[in-house]
């Protein structure tokens, strides 16, 4: 009877707090998720259910992630696992969760491979996928080619470079697909290891290929190294489009690239603080404010709050406000089956989340079962230490600056 009184949902939260991925954005995601979970704990839980969170560090290693997921599910008896930054962890953990018939709520892990053709039943990802990132980048360049570059799309020279991990590879696929669709001339597509001590031959190849636009996906140390060697070797181009992760952490980007960071593009789910608040559900802006204040307490003095934080916060928020209450009220509990049914019924229109997009999960039978079909990223541009949403048109805060103005060290004007 003590159990009956004490209604509780146990959540296992897994991110990388140590290892290379931690600094690549995972730790910021962790901060975002924790802010949101603490917020609901402070509110006394959801629908009479107390919330208990158990945090674990995946240490940037897939096998540790698997072990921790298994431990949380089998040992700690959590009702669901939430979080995950790296797709290399999401793939095996999702398979495990399916096998154990538990519930998994992915806040990040953008690789398409996580859900594609996996027929996942208990795994949900409100997040946009990597290929969407890649496609979005190509879309912006295509639509602006004539006006800004004065070229037909088929004359646009684009280069796709990426770290060769799961994330870079997936985004690059999107880049390639988008570029092909737009008819760009892909002058180079190449992966490299994020720990490579030297990228100068990549830069040399880029110089030889003379791209108008470089699509780049990477983490921090390799982005800095690339930017530095590109500048040192005198690489010139018209635009540099980054895709989240390293490009999402402006502070570090600026530290590494200096003034060259100006006019760089980044694709991510919108930073919640940049979202067009008038277009959002009116109950969201106060939450955004709360997250911002809490974040400032954790990491004081940050000029541009990283998109990573908001991403995890928003995606967690959807779980607490949409999935959990419905599961409890309509399906009578927090068991995986109830959570799953509740998740499948989420139906938020555009503007329904802090990230601007809506939520509707692809159901069983879909090739991307578990994926949010309404998610989309946005493209921001860093201009003079501020970031502005420049794409898609619907979210646009200002026109993208294209191509790089002469003031930039990389400008090929």
């Amino acid at each position, binding site marked *: 009877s003590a159990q009956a009184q004490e209604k509780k949902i146990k959540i296992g939260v897994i991110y990388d*707090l*140590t*290892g*290379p991925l*931690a*600094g690549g954005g995972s*730790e910021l995601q962790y901060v975002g998720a924790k802010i949101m979970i603490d917020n609901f704990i402070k509110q006394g839980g959801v629908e009479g259910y107390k919330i208990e969170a158990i945090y674990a560090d995946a240490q940037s290693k897939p096998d540790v992630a698997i072990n921790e997921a298994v431990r949380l599910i089998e040992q700690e008896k959590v009702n669901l696992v939430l979080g995950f930054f790296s797709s290399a962890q999401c793939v095996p953990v999702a398979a495990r969760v399916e096998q154990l018939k538990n519930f998994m709520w992915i806040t990040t892990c953008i690789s398409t491979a996580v859900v594609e053709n996996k027929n996942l039943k208990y795994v949900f990802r409100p997040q946009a996928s990597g290929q969407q990132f890649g496609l979005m980048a190509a879309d912006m360049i295509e639509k602006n080619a004539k006006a800004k570059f004065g070229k037909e799309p088929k004359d646009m020279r684009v280069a796709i470079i990426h770290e*060769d991990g799961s994330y870079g590879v997936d985004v690059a696929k999107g880049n390639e697909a988008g570029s092909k669709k737009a008819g760009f001339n892909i002058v180079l597509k*190449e*992966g*490299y*290891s994020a*720990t*490579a*001590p*030297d*990228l*100068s*031959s*990549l830069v*040399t*190849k880029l*110089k*030889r290929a003379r791209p108008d636009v470089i699509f780049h996906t990477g983490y*921090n*140390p390799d982005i*800095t*190294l690339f930017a*530095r*060697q590109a*500048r*040192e*070797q*005198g690489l010139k181009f018209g635009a540099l489009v980054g895709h989240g992760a390293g490009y999402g952490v402006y502070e*570090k980007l600026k*530290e*590494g690239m*200096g003034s060259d960071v100006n006019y760089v593009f980044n694709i991510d789910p919108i930073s919640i603080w940049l979202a067009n608040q008038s277009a959002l559900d009116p109950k969201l802006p106060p939450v955004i404010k709360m997250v911002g204040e809490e974040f400032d307490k954790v990491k004081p003095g940050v000029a541009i709050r990283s998109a990573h934080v908001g991403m995890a916060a928003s995606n967690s928020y959807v779980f607490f406000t949409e999935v959990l209450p419905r599961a409890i009220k309509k399906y009578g509990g927090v068991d995986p089956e109830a959570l799953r049914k509740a998740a499948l019924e989420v139906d938020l229109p555009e503007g329904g989340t802090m990230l601007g997009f809506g939520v509707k999960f692809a159901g069983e039978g879909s090739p991307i079962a578990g994926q949010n079909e309404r998610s989309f990223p946005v493209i921001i541009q860093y201009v003079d230490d501020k970031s502005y949403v420049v794409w898609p048109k619907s979210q646009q805060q200002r026109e993208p600056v294209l191509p790089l103005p002469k003031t930039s060290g990389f400008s090929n004007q």
Partner: protein
Amino acid sequence: MMEIFDIYLLEALVNGILLGGVLALLALGLNLIFGVIDVTWICYAELVMIGMYGMYYLFSVYGLPYWVAAPICILLVAALGAALHFLVIEPLLGAPPINQLLATGGVLFVLQSFATVAFGIDFRNLGIRLPVLALGEMHFSYARLLAFVAALIGMVAVYLFMTRTYTGTAIRAIAQDRQIMALMGVDTKKIYLVTSALGGGLAGLAACLLVLQYDVHPFVGLSFGPITFLICVLGGLGNFVGGFVAAFLFAEIISLGGLFSDLEWGYVLAFAFFIVMMFIRPAGLLAKRS
């Protein structure tokens, strides 16, 4: 088209040489420790990492000028090297070499997680941007030129030290017969102190120059560790000139391999080259064949 190709090839060649400078600098200290006194510091690249953090804190946080911070950093890593020797290696001098490898492997974990705990997981950067040397279409990095020059001077200095001085000779002798060193009037502790501090100092020197080119984070050592060991062996253990040459060969393979094929295959090529060379010249590139 052909002309452009040539100039890029040349650029890749020269960049290979400059990368070689970086690798040679890294290999210098390791060659002293691993090659000459036959002690395995598997955590060598992590010492460099600590040195890079040292530079970051001295320069960016405490605001010291670069040229003041650098010597302090070198001393710091030298002290760390000496401490490593006396705390970890000394008790294991009589044990099988594999135990040294493992103990310093443990130190590698310790240093990585120490950096994580003490400095956080953020990527750090000095934010110094050195000018660029432009020769027509080709551009070269001063940071790398600097590393190249330092490696060259360091190599010559260490070579002279090892062959021309009594201490240098003793350093070369100590791995071969430790017990009888006392008969020569040599205080083995002192020789080990000098050598490990020197090895550490060279790691510190590498750190000062690497930090101009790379972000610091607790795992930066992973990029350099294995390759540095391979270079020492390829050049012939304890052979400083050989190590220097090997660094350039490796760098050229990575650089040219990366130019003609994918970057990833550049490394496969470099590793494969290493294995093949081991068979052709097991005692090192410059060794005489017996």
